[in-house]
């Protein structure tokens, strides 16, 4: 093998290489978790709480256990090991024991020969509940007399950031803004599912849809009372995730049933159960003040941010921290105060969703910047250019932005994109008007509006986490030339990671044939989560490192036998936040801007997004088609939160747990999206890459709502902006009193101060 073949390889980095998992996906052969089946498998079904807050007085499983085809009925008493789990803190029961804390909380499990029999038996499980007071409003949760979701109180974490002198800074003009975002659902098309197969050694083999194999194992094993080596997790096909597969869903449940019955157990959620079976995006309430000089230089920012974390911690502590650090926006602001709180309520738990806190604060800071621009009489784009951060800027946490930060270029290129042509109002195909297939328009009362937003977030995990990634690359000689294979525990759930990894191997080793082997905990150490826009950097870095070691080993000898190298890629060290929220918390940053053009039927409040122009700071684009695909999909998801997506809650119960009433954009709602990338390499990153996945979702929502404001003249401060908001039947969301600052011992999550058991942090620290 010769490394001089590198220049002639096709489908290497920089090319729009075809997906390596594409063919089975178009033929229908790709095996998603919900497609798995084995002989003699049982179907598992979960019994869930109908109440937001109640004591479990009694559970009667007799009738269910005696139902036709039933092999097992299990409750909390049957959990073999640790009773609780959690990504950051083990505060979430595998099955509710004494109390239920949210509607949908798992209470019992049934396994039966057929799915129908399991469902029937589940309805025969009788649970006697004694209702308890519940708190379902995030501001209410802060009141001292609010019902306590957990014994230690409703504050999960409070972040305090103080930089400069925001209270005494000299400001010419202040603006006050108030913004709200609703609870959004990831709504991945493939609902949760998997198969648990009991093993002869007393262990369990799991085939599941997830985002991080090793952190799943880390939580599953203690709950089953098993050592980690006896819990073997293999990745099954994942039908999208966007954060909803970061927490455990059916893994422990199916395992418990499998170990009890000694038979394989499959659990596959339907759509309704899926809404109850995963975490959602935190709803937010944000009070934001900007102080500036008359010529448009930001002097101070003051943000009070409140997130509703729901009944269990999930990754809320990390979300509030991220959100707080990005709250003032990608701007140089010498004086900053941010107070960010995430509270427990009896609402469904919230956790990771594409953007991880950044979408909420971006909605607020971009709305506030437009307010400031209007107040100062300065063009809103000019205002942003004047204040944009750059390499070397000091961020509100005191972190110096060391990496690439071509924010001005991102903004300028976005607004330079040609606007879509004006369209005639009359005579169009009826389906092209706002309201689409409803035939509500022949072009009446149409207004166009243009809106803009710029935002940023972190790449990879923060605050001292070492989310390293391991990968193994093997090259073997064959009669037809060398073949390479990649072994990684990294999860591919659609974004194209495996294709990128193959491209890296092709370029680095000059090998055309590259195979990615199934991801399992038995063959690999952790690759970290497929989230935080981190995998191209982290697993890409691991694969690159392994390739480089292979190249060195083969520098002066031929490839006459297989060679394998394993590499663990670490990003640079970051720090926690000190008592003033200062530190070096983030590895790297990526920036994005979008300009949205909307057409609004202002009488009916219906919206058609005409075009989105997107520019993203990508560092280096490894697969142009894949990268634009991520921007387009991310934009659609942000557009959804802007105009139609909202989990509606009543007393903690989801009212719209179906695709009929939780509306995600159809092809008739999605606009043409024009994408450009700015490629200023990130120093110290493999190939100079940054992550792509989340940024479009961060900025699309504020861009679209800003466009709606321009079209209607209304101060829309809530996402989604519904027809009622747009026609003015409902006024802007009321700010009410700023949420009071809770009294907390420090920056950490409260459970940590109480020694209540760690989660994924343990995994990180153990690896050092």
């Amino acid at each position, binding site marked *: 093998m010769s490394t001089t073949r590198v220049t002639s390889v096709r489908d290497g980095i920089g090319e729009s290489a075809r997906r390596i998992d594409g063919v089975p996906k178009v033929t229908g052969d790709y095996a998603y978790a919900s497609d798995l089946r084995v002989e003699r498998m049982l179907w598992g079904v979960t019994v869930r709480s109908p109440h937001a807050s109640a004591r479990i007085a009694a559970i009667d499983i007799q009738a269910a256990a005696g139902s036709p085809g039933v092999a097992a009925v299990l409750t909390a008493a049957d959990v073999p090991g640790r009773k609780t789990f959690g990504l950051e803190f083990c505060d979430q029961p595998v099955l509710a024991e004494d109390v239920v804390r949210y509607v949908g909380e798992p209470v019992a499990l049934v396994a039966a020969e057929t799915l129908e029999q399991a*469902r029937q038996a589940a*309805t025969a499980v009788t649970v006697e509940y004694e209702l308890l007071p519940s708190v379902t409003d995030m501001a209410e949760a802060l009141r001292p007399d609010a019902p306590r979701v957990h014994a230690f109180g409703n504050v999960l974490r409070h972040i305090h950031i103080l930089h400069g002198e925001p209270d005494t800074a000299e400001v010419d003009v202040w603006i006050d803004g108030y913004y709200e975002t609703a609870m959004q659902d990831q709504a991945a098309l493939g609902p949760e599912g998997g198969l648990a197969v009991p093993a002869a050694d007393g262990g369990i083999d799991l085939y599941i849809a997830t985002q991080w194999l090793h952190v799943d194992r880390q939580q599953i094993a203690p709950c089953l009372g098993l050592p980690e080596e006896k819990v073997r997790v293999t990745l099954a096909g994942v039908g999208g995730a966007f954060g909803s597969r970061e927490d455990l869903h059916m893994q422990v449940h199916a395992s418990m049933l499998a170990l009890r019955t000694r038979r394989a157990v499959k659990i596959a959620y*339907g759509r*309704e159960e899926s809404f109850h079976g995963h975490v959602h995006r935190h709803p937010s309430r944000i009070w934001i003040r900007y102080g500036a000089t008359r010529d448009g230089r930001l002097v101070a920012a003051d943000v009070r941010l409140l997130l509703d974390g729901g009944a269990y911690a999930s990754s809320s502590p990390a979300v509030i921290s991220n959100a707080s650090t990005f709250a003032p926006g990608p701007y140089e602001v010498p004086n900053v105060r941010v107070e960010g709180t995430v509270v427990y309520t009896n609402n469904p738990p919230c956790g990771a969703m594409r953007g991880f806190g950044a979408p909420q604060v971006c909605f607020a800071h971009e709305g506030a910047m437009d307010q400031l621009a209007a107040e100062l009489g300065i063009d809103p784009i000019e205002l942003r250019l004047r204040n944009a951060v750059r390499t070397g800027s000091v961020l509100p946490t005191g972190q110096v932005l060391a990496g690439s930060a071509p924010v001005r270029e991102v903004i300028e290129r976005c607004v330079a994109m040609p606007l879509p042509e004006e369209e005639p109002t009359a005579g169009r195909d009826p*389906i092209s008007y*706002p*309201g*689409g*297939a*409803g*035939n*509500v*328009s*022949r072009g*009446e009362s149409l207004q166009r509006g243009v809106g803009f937003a710029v935002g940023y977030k972190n790449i990879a995990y923060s605050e001292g986490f070492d989310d390293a990634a391991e990968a193994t690359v093997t090259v073997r000689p064959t009669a037809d030339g060398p073949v390479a294979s990649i072994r990684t525990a990294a999860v591919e759930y659609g974004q194209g990671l495996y294709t990128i990894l193959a491209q890296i191997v092709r370029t680095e080793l000059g090998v055309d044939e590259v195979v990615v082997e199934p991801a399992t905990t038995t063959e690999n150490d952790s690759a970290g989560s497929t989230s935080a826009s981190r995998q191209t950097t982290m697993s890409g870095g691991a694969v690159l490192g392994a390739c480089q070691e292979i190249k060195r080993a083969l520098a002066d000898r031929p490839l006459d036998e297989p060679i394998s190298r394993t590499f663990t890629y670490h990003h640079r060290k970051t720090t926690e936040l000190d008592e003033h929220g200062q530190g070096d918390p983030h590895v790297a940053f990526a920036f994005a801007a979008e300009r949205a053009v909307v057409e609004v039927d202002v*009488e*009916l*409040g*219906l919206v*058609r997004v005409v075009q989105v122009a997107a520019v993203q700071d990508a560092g280096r684009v490894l697969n142009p088609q894949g990268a634009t695909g991520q921007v387009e999909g991310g934009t659609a998801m942000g557009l959804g939160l802007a*105009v*139609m997506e909202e989990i*509606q809650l009543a007393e903690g119960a989801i*009212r*719209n747990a179906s695709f*009929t*009433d939780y*509306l995600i*954009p*159809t*092809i*008739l*709602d999605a606009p043409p999206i024009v994408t450009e990338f700015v490629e200023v390499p990130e120093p110290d990153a493999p190939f100079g890459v940054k992550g792509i996945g989340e940024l479009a979702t961060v900025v699309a929502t504020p861009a679209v709502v800003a466009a709606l404001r321009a079209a209607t003249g209304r101060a829309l401060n809530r996402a989604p902006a*519904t*027809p*009622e908001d747009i*026609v003015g*039947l*409902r006024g802007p969301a009321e700010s009410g009193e700023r949420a009071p600052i809770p009294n907390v011992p420090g920056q950490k999550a409260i459970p940590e101060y109480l020694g209540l058991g760690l989660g994924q942090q343990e995994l990180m620290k153990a690896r050092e």
Partner: protein
Amino acid sequence: MDAFLPRTLAEALELRAAHPDAVPVAGGTDLMVAVNFGRARPPALLDLSRVEELRGWSRENGRIHLRAGTTFARIALELRAFRPLVEASRSVGSPQIRNRATIGGNVCTASPAGDGIPVLAAYDADIVLASGARERRVPWHEFFVGPKRTIIEPDELIVGLEWREIAGPGSFAKVGTRNAMVIAIAGICLQLDPESRSVRLALGSVAPTVVRATEAERFAASAISWDDPARPLAAADVAEFGRLAAAGASPIDDVRGSAAYRRHAVEVLAQRALHWTLDDRRVAA
């Protein structure tokens, strides 16, 4: 669960009488949602999808007979002369749904948001019911008695919809929060009948059943220049028509929309539909 698969209407009616608890199913697009979600467990299904006599339509002596098992896809393709009916059919779900969902099923489910029902109401249609013993025609407003409640007897099947053909322009419109695949937050069907100088305005999703906004209808009928199709209606009259239409609605707040928005949407849609039908009338003349 049993299943009965009749091939003729007579067979179907016999089975219906013998097994009143067998749930009739044609397209299945409403029933199967309930079955899939475990909310319905019929002891038996009476599958009407093979009964050829339940499909198609005919015209006789100025009366249209549309058979109950005709799908919305077929209606959109074949009943082009009935513009509001086509518009309503095209607005139903997706191509996949339209290829299966039937007008009879829409009527039988009797949701106040059913897309075909405002059109039938505007047409003053009769529901044709058959049992082994007899066939009867029930005016639409006597057939629907509440949300998802009708006066159909346990031994009856809906075999068709009938209406007197009206030579005049009409329009259907429905509002939803996104541009496709929506259950109507509010819907209307407006139909002008120049021969009788009357106006029909049916409202959907804004009351326990589809209703006719009779005050708005009377107002429009007296305001329109029936003899002069080129003469537009004064803006104030169009506005009043909209107000009366909204007053004819008694909507509720629910997960899809608020009562206030529904009333507002009815007002706007009624005004627009009136403009469109008068424009169409002027152009046709």
